[in-house]
């Protein structure tokens, strides 16, 4: 499983890339592999206020719908519009073109609650 060293991770299988006061959030390689066949992604509207550890998006594979949790609290400032036409990007490039949404963090201290790459690898038994 690909677990990039420069990201933080949630137990619920989201990754977070910190860009200044903004967190870019996506689904891990492990999660996309478990789900496979992602055919629909429902993202929060820009301007929505999200809460850390609360569900705020849905990723649907052929077989099931899965909730995506906001890893940090704040305002959604961007979403990946390409996913509406190409949801399979989450499978093909989970850490790149398959990113989900960006949150302007209200409390960057929440980042400390997230897992390091090593801890996430341990979490998924990799």
């Amino acid at each position, binding site marked *: 499983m690909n677990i990039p060293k420069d990201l933080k991770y949630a137990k619920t299988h989201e990754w977070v890339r910190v860009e200044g006061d903004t967190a870019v959030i996506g689904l891990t390689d492990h999660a996309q592999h478990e789900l*496979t066949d992602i*055919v629909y992604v429902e993202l929060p509207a820009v301007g929505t206020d999200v809460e850390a550890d609360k569900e705020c998006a*849905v990723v649907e594979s052929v077989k099931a719908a899965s909730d995506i949790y906001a890893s940090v609290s704040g305002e959604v400032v961007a979403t990946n519009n390409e996913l509406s036409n190409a949801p399979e990007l989450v499978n093909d490039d989970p850490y790149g073109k398959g990113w989900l949404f960006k949150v302007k963090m209200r409390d960057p201290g929440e980042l400390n609650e997230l897992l390091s790459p090593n801890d996430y690898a341990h979490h998924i038994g990799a």
Partner: protein
Amino acid sequence: MPSTVTLRRTPLYSAHLEWGAKMVSFAGWEMPAQYSSIIEEHTAVRERVGLFDISHMGEVLVAGPNAERVLNHLLTNDVSTIGVGQAQYTLMCNERGGVIDDLIVYRVEPSVYLMVVNAANIETDFAWMNAHANASAVFENESDNTAALALQGPNSVRLLADVAARVPHFHVARLDVFGHECWIARTGYTGEDGFEILCDTGDAVELWNALLSRGRELGIRPCGLGARDTLRLEMCYPLNGSDMTAETTPIEAGLVRFVAFDKADFIGRDALLTQKEKGVARKLAAFKMVGTSPPPRSHYAIVAGARKIGEVTSGTQSPTLSVGIGMGYVETAVAQPGAKIEIEVRGKSYPAVIEQKPLLKRKS
């Protein structure tokens, strides 16, 4: 599923793990949901060939001079119309016409029939048959001694060319397949040409391996229950327990052609005849989403004119059509091809249209 329930395993359990299957619980069995990807496995069957383990399904033999009479009392279709070596799709109903199970009956000898029933219903069906037989006949539950494989897709007839030459569509024969004597039927649940192979449990692994290795050049893939579900749903083949239950009838499910009213009395006949003559309030309709939407799934509300008119019983994203598809019972007045409906997903309505069955139109 509670952890106290022990799931049953087919003889191919280890083979599935070796092929990297994701296992799921289904009807009390631990079965492969998928190996690589549902979409890839689905496409393999539509375009090439796929191999499924369907050993969870049940096999019941009925034998004796009264076998035909007993089956014609228990089942809705007319078994007297099939000859030795032929297969027939049929239903078993309760007195109210509700569906207990749908099954394929194979006439394997003049007075011996083999029934393949749904995994979840093996014990129920067997008990019902014994309790409601109208004459003496020998019922044998062969499910524990029998494994079953489904080889489906256009290349299946190249892989088993000798068998294909001897077993026409909806027929069955006892033949040697790679050194193992099997019942091999030209039937399936995918809409593609193919075979269902019933063998001794001890032969299953060798047959599985032989078919996968000999099928390699034909693009064969092992396929799980995920692809089995998307394939059958594109063809609008109902899944018992989801699209049909003891509370719905073959008339409501659009299966009247499998109900033989012109034969002698059978269980459920009065109720079904009344429905056929007076009409039904709801029908199992097939629908397609219009444009991009979340995949419809069972229990989602079907809405028309801001009013709930039914519920989805099966739904998925169609790998062949690349659009959401499903089936559900809706008011008969609405259940007409072309009717506009909406499917409610997480509080939001998405447009859909009722379509003629099957949803996947075949070339010919």
